[in-house]
């Protein structure tokens, strides 16, 4: 199947701004799914609210476009009910880690087999460019006219601490790496977190004089480096990309199956 066969062309054109990184993430994700040769009927995509969340409308899977921050809770219900389905949950940075932060850490703690894709453009785009918990200190936003004093989460460290068994980071520039990581994340049995740095030239770029979409994508190229690279040792400011964690821990739905076996043996 070609990548475009996974799209619902009936609903195009999409609503993302020119230069937005989210279409590049969609491309990387569909390449991964295409390489895995997955059937469209076995994939459920659950999203919340925001620019990123609209991705679910454009793909020809079972798609659930929910409420702000709660996509992982809806996805937990779907997965728990039908563990044979593959759950992919794309979220924006605010969606995943501000309003949805609690669901994020608890899904990681349970190690439920869901692929959480954090499309991190460091801004609330849909509402007009307010700072998010991933914007970082010193950033300008429509709610930070005198620069932001909030420090940001490190998605990778947060996911690791919460118990995610697959944790990776890449960028919209590194589409091949993105597809490769997402492929592994989808195959991983457990809670997988993939942070993709994505550009928002409309709000983040304009407010922070980061240039146009091309400049912003080039920034990802110049300011990221593979995990443990020599460049990182020489320049601590570089952001590492790659797979940080890939471990085995019993997955939630399979643990529930074991619980059922114990329940059936229990005397009433």
């Amino acid at each position, binding site marked *: 199947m070609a990548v475009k066969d996974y799209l619902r062309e009936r609903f195009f054109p999409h609503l993302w701004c020119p230069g937005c990184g989210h279409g590049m993430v969609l491309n990387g994700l569909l390449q991964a799914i295409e390489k895995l040769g997955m059937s469209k009927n076995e994939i459920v995509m659950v999203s919340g609210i925001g620019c990123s969340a609209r991705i679910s409308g454009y793909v020809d899977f079972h798609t659930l476009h929910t409420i702000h921050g709660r996509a992982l*809770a809806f996805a937990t219900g779907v997965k728990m009910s039908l563990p044979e389905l593959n759950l992919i949950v794309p979220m924006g940075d605010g969606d995943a880690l501000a309003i949805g932060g609690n669901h994020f850490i608890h899904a990681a703690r349970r190690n439920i087999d869901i692929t959480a894709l954090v499309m991190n453009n460091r801004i609330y785009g849909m509402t007009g460019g307010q700072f998010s918990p991933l914007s970082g200190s010193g950033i300008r936003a429509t709610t930070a006219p005198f620069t932001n004093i909030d420090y940001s989460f490190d998605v990778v460290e947060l996911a690791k601490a919460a118990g995610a068994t697959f944790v990776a980071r890449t960028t919209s520039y590194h589409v091949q790496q993105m597809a490769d990581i997402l492929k592994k994340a989808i195959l991983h049995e457990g809670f997988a977190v993939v942070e993709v740095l994505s550009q928002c030239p409309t709000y983040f770029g304009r407010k922070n004089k980061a240039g146009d979409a091309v400049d912003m994508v080039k920034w990802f190229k110049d300011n990221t480096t593979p995990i443990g690279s020599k460049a990182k040792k020489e320049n601590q400011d570089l952001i590492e990309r790659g797979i940080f964690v890939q471990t085995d821990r019993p997955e939630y739905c399979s643990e529930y199956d074991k619980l059922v076996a114990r329940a059936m043996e229990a005397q009433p």
Partner: protein
Amino acid sequence: MSEKIKFVQGNEACVEGAMYAGLDFYAGYPITPSSEIAELLSYRLPRSGGKFIQMEDEIASLCAIIGASLTGRKVMTATSGPGFSLMQEALGYAVMAEIPCVIVNVQRGGPSTGLPTHGSQGDINQARWGTHGDHAIIAMTASNHQDVFAVTIEAFNLAETYRTPVILLFDEVVAHMRERLIIPDFDVVPLVERLKTSVKEGVDYHPYLPREDGRLPMSDFGGVHRYNVTGLFHDMWGFPSSEPRAVHGLLRHLVDKIENRTNLIARYKEFYLEDAEHLLISYGSAARSARHVVENRRMRGEKLGLLELQTLWPFPEDIVRDKCAHAKSVIVVELNMGQMLREVKMAVDEPQKVFLANRIDGVFITPEDILNILRLIRGRGV
């Protein structure tokens, strides 16, 4: 297999009703006075092929059951006031996306943390109006365990019939009281199963195009039809749309599918209404004291009657108007500051003859409390 007789709490009667109705997915978060429902289901569901999950909060609980419902399961969550407040956004989502689910609110005193271990009926209006935007809702209650069992089954049946969330507004008094419950054989109470689409694979399926009778045949997630579900206004494919005709049509459908069938959905019980001069209207635990007053006064020859509402929303205004037509006075008995009183006053032809007998101090209303109001109405002082 013959019917079973048990001596149970109201919360357990709710669990028995849910299991009878075919509940096979529950998500919840602990909260007094509803926690026994989760505790019992954590034992029952894994043993019956169902799923139980304790979520991180009440928001996640309702979201999780909505997700599970889309895979074809019969789903429920249970909570109390503070948790029910947290659920309001997801409740609106279930209304908009037309997801069958049952939400139990075992009411306690509010606002806020309020009186966690005391009875109240303070969430009646929240159930109707708590989530934002115009919408219709079905909410039911019961005053004794046999009825808790029956309305719980009815809630699942209505949720499936109308593809809507149904709220069960029980209260602490009924939830924690112990009483006899007779569980009938499995084929005795009719059950409504999910209406599935007959559209074949490869044929364009319209998940949000109502049939002539207003019902929407569903396709389970994981099945052969892939479609979009959203809380945005949407077209017949479930794809977001702000086209005025689509918006108007969907909102009318969401409200009309329930409010045009108010009399059909209405469940109520009546005691001595034929010749009642003074008519009590009550529901839930408060109806127990109201019924006691009526039975007691009838023995003395006083013409009192009771209309016990089980369906609170959509409010059965035609039925209430009709039943109250010949009464000299109507006394609404409830454990709040008059939430159903307002509805009754709006429904009847003579609102000036409607009075309130209530308690709001966490103490259960007694027959004496109701009699005091009756004496006042009759001009006899307390």
